[in-house]
């Protein structure tokens, strides 16, 4: 189990992660989702104790990562974005080194190293120099290293980046298997990957937690959204103001077009039921804007994700 309580991490004046709290129970796979620069890697580095949190704390299996670092780190296996490999060592030498570093008793080392190599299907490469391995195998060796010492919590930073599609599927299957016994936290910027593998999803944007839940919950909550494309005759501002006040409307974008027309893009919270559409068109009519065309479309999870992670950016600019 791993708990994060009100994590904040600053680099000088820049805030990379702000007030992040979550708990991942044992046997669960948690996905950290967000675009590049959302603070995923920083979050994982803070969770593993590589970086210290500016505020808040991390508790791994009951041990605070900064107050009882040795006990907490024993329960942590970390695969950073770039696997921490020594190119001049062979795979087996490297894994033996990590096993010793992670305090695996001497008698168990060989067995554990072999088991880890089999687990990630890298046993054929045992005697190869790491410098000669392909990206996929490097990733596997990195994962094997994270498994040594049988840690309770596994933290994987973008584990499938740079793999070919077949390897990606293999890796996801592997992560799902690992999730049965371990607590797994992985980061990704690919929504489909996270929703396929994870039991819990955290969506991060600009260091803040935007949404949290199971993939199904998120899909229900988010995919329920719909969008209306409306063409009206009248001022863009008036039309937007008329629609914004309505219940169930969460976002309105208005662009003026030629001949006194305006195009409105309205995002609805709870689907595009006919009553909703009627309410929108009535409100527009009441404001003196005639509706020329109205189309409803459902939003995919991808679009919702994009919207969620983009909104605060606009907010920041307004501030």
């Amino acid at each position, binding site marked *: 189990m791993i708990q994060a309580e009100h994590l904040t991490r600053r680099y000088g004046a820049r805030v990379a992660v702000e007030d992040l709290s979550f708990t991942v129970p044992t046997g669960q796979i948690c996905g950290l989702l967000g675009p590049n620069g959302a603070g995923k890697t920083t979050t994982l*580095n803070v969770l593993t104790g590589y970086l210290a949190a500016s505020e808040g704390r991390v508790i791994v299996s009951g041990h605070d990562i900064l107050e009882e670092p*040795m006990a907490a*780190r024993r329960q942590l296996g970390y695969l*950073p974005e*770039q696997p*921490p*490999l020594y190119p001049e*060592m062979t795979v087996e030498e490297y894994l033996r080194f*990590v096993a*010793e570093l992670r305090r695996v008793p001497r008698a168990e080392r060989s067995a554990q190293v072999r088991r880890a190599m089999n687990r990630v299907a890298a046993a054929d490469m045992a005697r190869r120099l790491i410098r000669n391995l392909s990206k996929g195998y490097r990733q596997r060796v990195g994962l094997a290293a994270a498994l040594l010492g049988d840690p309770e919590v596994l933290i994987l930073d973008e584990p499938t980046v740079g793999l070919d599609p077949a390897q990606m599927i293999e890796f996801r299957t592997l992560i799902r298997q690992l999730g049965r016994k371990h607590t797994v936290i992985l980061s990704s910027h690919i929504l489909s990957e996270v929703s396929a593998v994870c039991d819990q999803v955290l969506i991060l944007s600009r260091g803040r937690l935007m949404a949290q839940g199971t993939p199904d919950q998120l899909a229900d909550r988010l995919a329920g959204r719909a969008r209306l494309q409306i063409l009206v005759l009248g001022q863009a501002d008036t039309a937007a103001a008329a629609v914004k006040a309505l219940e169930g409307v969460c976002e309105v974008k208005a662009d003026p077009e030629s001949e006194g027309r305006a195009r409105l893009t309205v995002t609805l919270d709870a689907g595009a039921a006919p009553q909703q559409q009627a309410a929108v068109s009535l409100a527009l009519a009441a404001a003196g804007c005639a509706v020329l065309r109205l189309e409803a479309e459902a939003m995919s999870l991808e679009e919702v994700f994009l919207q969620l992670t983009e909104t605060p950016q606009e907010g920041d600019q307004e501030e």
Partner: protein
Amino acid sequence: MSAIFKREWKCMFSGMLGYALCAAYVLVGGLYFWVYNLLNLYPDFGYTLYGTTFAMLVFIPILTMRSLAEERRSHTDQLLLTAPVGVPSLVAGKYLAMAAVFTVPVAILGLCPLVMRLYGTVSLPKAYGALLGYWLLGCAGIAIGLFFSGLTDSPIIAALSTFGVLLLSYLMPGIQSLFAVGSLLALGVFGLLAALAGLLAGIRSRSLMLGMLVFLALCAALLALYALRSATLTSAFTALLGALGLFTPFENFIYGIFSIPAVIYYLSITALFLFLAGQGLEKRRWS
């Protein structure tokens, strides 16, 4: 700690670097031994060692440059700093491995007095006392190199800064004699040091007031000293420069003095820089 020691040692001797460094060192040592002791028949092995101290200026930066900088560059520090190993044992493992590599050529050079003994009378305690001092000097230099390697992620910059610092301390006796002048200069230098101490105190405690107070207190003490006993200030300045001359205390050993202060000096330099290297690693977590 033993895992890191073993890896570091293997890494040195899995490529050319370890062998090349040791071979070059033994070559230089052997050359001096040949010229001083065999051709010119000096019975003192200490002189030979003294002649080869300059080789450390090259040997130590190359030996230590990769130790921490390379880990940072290849992101393997993420493995080390998240493993259940404390920063002290990490630094100790790295340091001991490099000290062990340095011990190899020193041990080989240790055969020279035995060779001389075959052909004449040689004071072995004197020769091996000098060798011990020599070894301690090298180990202190390695600690300095390790510290500089931790400051950057570029081995080249680490090597150059270590070389620069070692060169400066090698030339310190000459610099010392250049500066053996008026107390006003000493006052200036100490004033600068006081400003530095004040700045550090201010940054450390995040209080401008405290930094200023430290600076003012130190300046007042300095001015009082200058007004009352300016000679103390000058000698303190010379002593300060002397303390920076890493290679000077070793000279005692050549003259056959087993100098305890020199041993303590080298051990404290080693401990200080290892501590600073550890602090540097720990600090990166927070910055």
